[in-house]
């Protein structure tokens, strides 16, 4: 087990955002995390990546306890995340954005630059290296976000709604990119609302509602799970797949 989460809890005031959550991610898999708005998906990411400290519970990565570490320490350990709303360094060029990520593994400027260029070619931003990040389109900013994360050489990548707002063609590109990332041996956990995409990409899906896990399993199992249909997919989805 690459990542192991046990009995995770996080409360904001009176709201129990994550409630006794337990799950794990196997090395090399793409794990989907779905659920209605406010189910606690992003909070789970923030807890794993060290933005928040959990109230209780344990997070283990490669067998080591990483609960309560700061986000930069967790990045160095090999977990990197992207943000739901892209957070590029707006006034920096694309390549410098990615170099910043690469610096987490080397202090050598030339080496960081080589790494950044390699990653940019990998995500398909090779031709836009010298453009300022703020001038990129929304989809390219997402690509940049992924590139910057990949430059830190993660073992585990957390993708937070990377495909929100993309058109079908862009979605297909994103799907093939995520498959390529997995083929490099990087484990991926993704939060996604585009159900079709997550069903096709993920070997395993976890469904959250009110901070707890209401279902877990393969795409087909999730699709026909009564609780999931009630809480998230909805009756229309059931009718749609029956046809």
């Amino acid at each position, binding site marked *: 087990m690459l990542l192991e989460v046990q009995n995770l809890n996080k409360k904001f005031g009176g709201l129990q955002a994550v409630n006794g959550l337990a799950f794990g991610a196997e090395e090399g898999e793409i794990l989907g995390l779905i659920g209605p708005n406010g189910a606690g998906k992003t909070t789970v990411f923030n807890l794993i990546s060290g933005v928040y400290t959990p109230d209780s519970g344990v997070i283990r990565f490669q067998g080591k306890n990483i609960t309560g570490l700061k*986000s930069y320490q967790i990045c160095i350990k090999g977990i990197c995340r992207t*943000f739901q709303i892209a*957070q590029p*360094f707006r006034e920096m060029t694309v390549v410098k954005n990615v*170099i*910043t990520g690469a610096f987490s593994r080397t202090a050598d400027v030339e080496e960081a630059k080589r790494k950044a260029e390699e990653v940019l070619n990998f995500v398909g931003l090779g031709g836009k290296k010298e453009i300022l990040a703020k001038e990129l389109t929304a989809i390219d900013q997402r690509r940049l976000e992924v590139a910057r*994360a990949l430059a830190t050489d993660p073992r585990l990548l957390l993708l937070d709604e990377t495909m929100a707002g993309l058109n079908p063609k862009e979605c297909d590109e994103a799907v093939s990119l995520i498959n390529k990332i997995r083929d490099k041996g990087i484990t991926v956990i993704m939060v996604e609302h585009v159900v079709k995409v997550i069903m096709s990409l993920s070997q395993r899906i976890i469904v959250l509602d009110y901070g707890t896990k209401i279902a877990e399993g393969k795409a087909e199992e999730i699709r026909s799970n009564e609780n999931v249909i009630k809480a998230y997919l909805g009756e229309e989805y059931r009718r749609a797949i029956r046809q």
Partner: protein
Amino acid sequence: MKISVKSFTRPRGYVPLIGLIFLLILPLFLPTYFLHIMITMLFFAFVGEAWNIVGGYAGQLSLGNAAFFGLGAYGAVLFTHYYNISPWVGGVLIGGAAAIVLSVMTGLACFRLRGPYFAISTLAIGEVMRLVFLNQRKFTFGAEGVTVPYKGNSLLYLQFVSKAPYYYIALALMLLGMYVTWKIEKSRLGHYLVAINQNQDAAEAVGVNSMRTKQIALSVSAFLTAMGGTFYAQYIYFIDPNFVFGLGLSIEFALIAIVGGVGTVMGPVIGSFLLRPAMEFTNAFLGATYTGVHLIAYGGLLIAVVMLKPEGLMGWLGGLYEWFLKWLPGKEK
């Protein structure tokens, strides 16, 4: 970057070289008063560079840099006064070390805050230091200030009868400040500072220890600023807490970098070379006729720069410089 004879046949190589030679021979024919203005320009360019590391690159608007400046100044003067120790030791080493210690304490307390809250908290640090030195009269002489013990011409005691040696030391300080800044800009540290400035959360997410990175920047800035304080004390021969720890000085450091262009190597130099002569000349021409009018003129200049070029003069002058280079003989690569 490799430097060879060939690099000086290109405008980008020989223009700075001509500028440097010009600055080196300037004391030979400049009258004393103008030499004094040049010294303040070079000196404020240096402390502006020091501020720029933390205030410009890292975007942490420090309004307490006078605290470090005062430690360098008082370290130099008091150690000479009490123990007959050279200001190189008392000011640069001991004062500089004290400034680094204070910068770590400042960092621990203030870097938890962001934006204006950080600025206000550093302002408090400067004021605390000013009050401490004002009130510990037995040791610091309080508001009376201290005079540098006279030692005659002496490099060891950093005292000179003529202005030319001060000029060359100030020039060396400015070049040191530019070199340190340039080195930082090219390194991982400089990269991280800019990243923190633009988006601290995103920087943390890709492995940047923002607390430690900002701390290093502040400590480098503090040490250089303390060096500036030592030089100031030895040049003016007199210091008092209200000036060397004063808020006015802290703001001046920031203004120089902001007017010139924050986060650039040349910014503080440009800022200082514009603002210091403006301050001196308005004071010389207007100061005696109507008290305070020179401050209105100076204030007007600041407002004009901030309104017309809010990102500083560097971007605009940099473009002008590039255009100018094209007209000069010699080929760029």
